[in-house]
């Protein structure tokens, strides 16, 4: 009998699945991915047949049927009704009366189990579908946000770019004012009398300091224009004791009335660097520290080395940089939201990063809002 039943089922499996599908379609759920549901139904039908012909009274089945029925009752009465309708009209009809009598209670249970499994499957599909829609929406939303962000950055960068020339002009005018002023002053004085050597020396030192500053600004601008088109900088590296360099730059920062706490390991601490550029890097970092921190706070500068690397740290106790802007501050023209009250080109850190990286070093910036910013530079040590 088992084999007769098996044969009957084998020839009818498509029909059974099809009837199931149509019955279930009345519940509306089959409108989700009909092809997939049909395929799943076919598989479930086959499972049902397999279960029916192998061991109708298997204990495992009985347990899972119980679970399925419970799930059906609680979840979907409509599907159960559809299931029972199919059993009554389709599947059982071709069987002999004895077969039906013998199998009906078991079939009802099996059908219930299949219906439960189907329900779970279709629910999974729906959930999966919803999840896909949700994640697609989320992705779209993320893309939109990313696009908004990119647009905002592009706009900010364009604005910054349009401002950059006026900032550059402003920055260059400042040392120019003192150079022009001092030379005018000398010219004015020598017309009337012979100035003292000391007086002249003071004027000359001031002019020299201003020309050096202009030189640095122009170098920075040239570097920036090269970096903008993706060109490498032409470095002129030499063997340098960084201890001297660090102390010299720290002194010039003290000139603007800020205290720089210098912590330098006993030297020499030597590296193979482009002096002018490394000075500019340090100037930049110290100036940033001075610009974005209250004047009564100290700026800390430390220099140390281990067997492979030289470490330079510049720390301030100023406004800080918002965490989400940290990756942006080294992009040309970008200026952190906390920096915008103070004039600047937005080129400084971009240049610093490029210079350090071209020396085979690394730049890391850490910042806590309202507490301060710490810039850490690592350079390969001269072996």
């Amino acid at each position, binding site marked *: 009998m088992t084999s007769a039943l098996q044969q009957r089922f084998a020839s009818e499996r498509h029909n059974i699945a099809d009837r199931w599908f149509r019955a279930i379609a009345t519940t509306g759920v089959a409108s989700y991915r009909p092809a997939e549901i049909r395929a799943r139904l076919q598989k479930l039908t086959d499972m049902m047949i397999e279960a029916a012909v192998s061991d109708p009274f298997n204990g495992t089945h009985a347990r899972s049927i119980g679970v399925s029925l419970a799930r059906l009752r609680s979840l979907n009465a409509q599907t159960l009704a559809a299931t029972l309708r199919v059993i009554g009209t389709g599947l059982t009809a071709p069987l002999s009366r004895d077969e039906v009598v013998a199998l009906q209670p078991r079939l009802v249970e099996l059908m219930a189990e299949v219906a439960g499994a189907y329900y779970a499957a279709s629910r999974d599909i729906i959930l999966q579908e919803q999840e896909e829609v949700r994640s697609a929406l989320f992705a779209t939303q993320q893309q939109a946000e990313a696009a908004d962000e990119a647009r905002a950055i592009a706009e900010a960068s364009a604005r910054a770019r349009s401002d950059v020339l*006026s900032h550059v*002009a*402003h*920055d260059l*005018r*400042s*040392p*120019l*004012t*003192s150079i*022009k*002023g*001092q030379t*005018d*002053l000398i010219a*004015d*004085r020598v017309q009337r009398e012979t100035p003292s050597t000391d*007086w002249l020396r*003071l*004027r000359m030192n*001031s002019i020299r*300091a*201003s020309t050096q*500053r202009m030189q640095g600004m122009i170098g920075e601008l040239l570097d920036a224009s090269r970096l903008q088109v993706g060109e490498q900088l032409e470095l002129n590296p030499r063997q340098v004791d960084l201890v001297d360099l660090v102390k010299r730059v720290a002194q010039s920062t003290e*000139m*603007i*009335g*800020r205290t720089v706490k210098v912590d330098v390991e006993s030297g020499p601490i030597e590296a193979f660097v482009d002096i002018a550029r490394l000075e500019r890097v340090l100037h930049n970092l110290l100036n940033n520290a*001075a*610009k*974005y921190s*209250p*004047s*009564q706070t100290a700026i800390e500068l430390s220099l140390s080395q281990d067997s492979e690397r030289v470490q330079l740290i510049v720390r301030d106790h100023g406004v800080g940089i918002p965490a989400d802007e940290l990756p942006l501050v080294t992009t040309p023209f970008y200026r952190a939201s906390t920096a915008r*009250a*103070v*004039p600047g080109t937005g080129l400084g850190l971009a240049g610093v990063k490029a210079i350090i990286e071209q020396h085979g070093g690394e730049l890391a910036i850490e910042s806590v809002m309202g507490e301060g910013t710490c810039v850490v530079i690592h350079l390969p040590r001269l072996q």
Partner: protein
Amino acid sequence: MTDSTSSPTVLVVDDDPEIVDFLEAALAGRGYNVLVAINGGALDIAQTGQPDLILLDLLMPGMDGVEITRRLREEPSTARIPIVVMSAHERLHFAASAMPVDDRLPKPFELDELYDTVARWVQGR
């Protein structure tokens, strides 16, 4: 020390030490007493020094010229001191027009411009 009985006192406020040096030399050469504030401290020095004129840079880190002007005007002892705002900024006139300052001096300037401006405000006192 300031000798307020014989010669007028000018307070120079700028974050650029070279400009401070130049203004100090130029004004001292013309007989003015010169007080200097490089970074911060301008308010205290103005109160204690009671200068006849303040030459104030517009854009400075920390407290900028706008903020310093506001505080100078709020403080009764400094409220009436003339302020000349200096800047290399291309829009100095626009910025200064919104500030309670008396005059402006665009950088760079000629020595005569500096001397004339300072003399005008100091004499007007």
